[in-house]
């Protein structure tokens, strides 16, 4: 049994090992994510970025190792407990928007809030605000099929941010976007994280996008390779106030 993780880490993992049907994806990764920071996980395709995000968020159970969130263990939680944790504290943006096709943009954004028991009015107001912030307020009453991919992706970002989760996991969120839209979406993600003290874990293979991160770790073949040296607290605070 290990000691509890350091207090200033909102998310903390030690020695996690995960394989998909025998193919090793993560081979012993230890990582800590501080509260309110933007952490970029870089690496080529197949390096284990998505698996790492899945393990940290409790979407995938780890084979070995520990994952802690806010000083409570995630790796020992039951399936139901992990679902509840994801619903109440985590938000996701994937490389595909994965919207519910029969719901309008606003309903899609309001859905996580409704699912966690928020009132109808509060959920729809928050949804409208986030759609406004992401420049898709004009399409609030449209269905995903009527929109273009970049608009759908913005709606997916709004959906992840609207419940103000403690940690937002973004797995290659800019994959379907053009260069300008990429910058805008990531700027919004990063600034939302800073203004609302959200923690953002961003997986990307685009080296240009690392500039939005406070700290970067690099993965290769399931192992950490890159600069993992943590930024001093003062520096992180400086970037947070930027």
């Amino acid at each position, binding site marked *: 049994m290990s000691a509890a993780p350091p207090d200033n880490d909102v998310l903390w993992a030690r020695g996690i090992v995960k394989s998909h049907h025998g193919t090793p994806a993560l081979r012993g990764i230890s990582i800590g994510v501080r509260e309110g920071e933007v952490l970029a996980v870089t690496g080529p395709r197949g390096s284990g970025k998505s698996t790492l995000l899945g393990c940290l968020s409790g979407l995938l159970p780890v084979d070995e190792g520990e994952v802690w969130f806010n000083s409570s263990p995630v790796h020992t939680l039951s399936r139901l407990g992990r679902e509840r944790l*994801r*619903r109440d504290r985590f938000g996701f943006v994937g490389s595909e928007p994965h919207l*519910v096709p*029969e719901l309008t943009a606003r309903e899609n954004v309001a859905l*996580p809030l*409704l*699912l966690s028991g928020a009132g109808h009015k509060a959920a729809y107001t928050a949804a409208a605000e986030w759609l406004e912030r992401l420049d898709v307020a004009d399409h609030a009453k449209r269905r995903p*099929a009527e929109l273009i991919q970049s608009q*759908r992706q913005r709606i997916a970002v709004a959906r992840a941010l609207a419940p103000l989760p403690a940690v937002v996991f973004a797995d290659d969120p800019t994959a379907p976007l053009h260069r300008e839209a990429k910058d805008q979406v990531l700027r919004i993600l990063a600034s939302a994280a800073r203004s609302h003290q959200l923690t953002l874990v961003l997986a990307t293979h685009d080296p240009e996008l690392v500039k939005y991160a406070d700290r970067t770790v690099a993965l290769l073949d399931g192992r950490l390779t890159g600069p993992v040296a943590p930024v001093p607290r003062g520096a992180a605070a400086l970037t947070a106030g930027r």
Partner: protein
Amino acid sequence: MLYFRLARGYRPADLGRWLLTATAAALVAALLLRALGRALGEPAVSSLPRLLWCLPPLAAVGWFAAVVGRAVPAARPERIDGLTAAGAGPVRIRLLVAGEIALACTLGSAVALLLFLVLRNDIADPSLAADLGMGSPLPAAAPVTLLVLVPLVAGVSAACAVPLTDPLPTGREHTAPTGFGPLRIALPTGLLLTGTALELYGLRPGASVDGRPVALPGGLGDTGVAALVGWSLAALGLALLTAPLLALAGRLLALGRPTPLRLLAGRGLTAEARRIGTPLAVLGLAAAAVLAAFRYWIGRPGSSETLTSVEGLLVVACALAALLVRAAEVRSARRDVSSTLLRLGAAPRLLFGAAALRVLAAGTVLLLTGGLTAVLAAGALG
């Protein structure tokens, strides 16, 4: 050989579809052979009406095959992807799916033929002798020609129904429009109202004095022209109204300030109204007609005809199976949506509840349209 290779990868759902197709084909083949047997036994009597009676079940099998063909790409996207990657174009995929279905129908027909030949070979009860054409020689080409019809009809309708696949996976998010135009609602409503009025006019007190000129086949007695035409119009209107009614039920479910359960159930029902509406309408129509016929026969003992009732039940079974296949297609097409919702933290119980609510609403619509059709049919039969 490829078909056998593909068949080795069947899951229970695929196998169920395959067996359902084969069974329906076997039953239709049995009906066709019975008509042939009769024609052999009594060459003097025209066999055309009996062959015409085989058309509704043949049409039912053809339609069922179309529904099955449509469901294959949605149920097994990885198989279609694999075939596409291996270089099979849309035409070849269509042919492959149609071939699978035609193969099932061929097997069903062959089983029926085998049974027919075995029964003819003096095993059958003498009471069946007339139906099997026992004692008269059987020209080999006749049953083969007749039975080629079943796989042919099924294969062609399945080939026409297989949707063209989109080579790019991003196209999957595309959905059909969910609304119904004003004409799409006004036309069936008009048909329903006109039909009902016409039928009531045909059944007005005193009309029966004029006599009932149209004789119905299958021991169903006779009825008036106005009542028959009125019922046909009203039934068509009700069938066409099923999909808009489903969409309306979905809207009602999600009315006001819906909870996630009502929102997901209602919007899902509205979105799938077109896909579910057609098989539901066909089932409602077939079940209503068969129910009314059975009610008529029960009221007048001795008037029933076995052939007609078997045919009716076959059509209803095909319609029910088609509805189930379509429901499975919708379910597999929504796999992505379900996993998205689960990822958002929706409880599996919520998804199950939404599905149950949708089934309940669809059942209510079926009871409404089917029940009304049955009442009108019972009225027309007298």
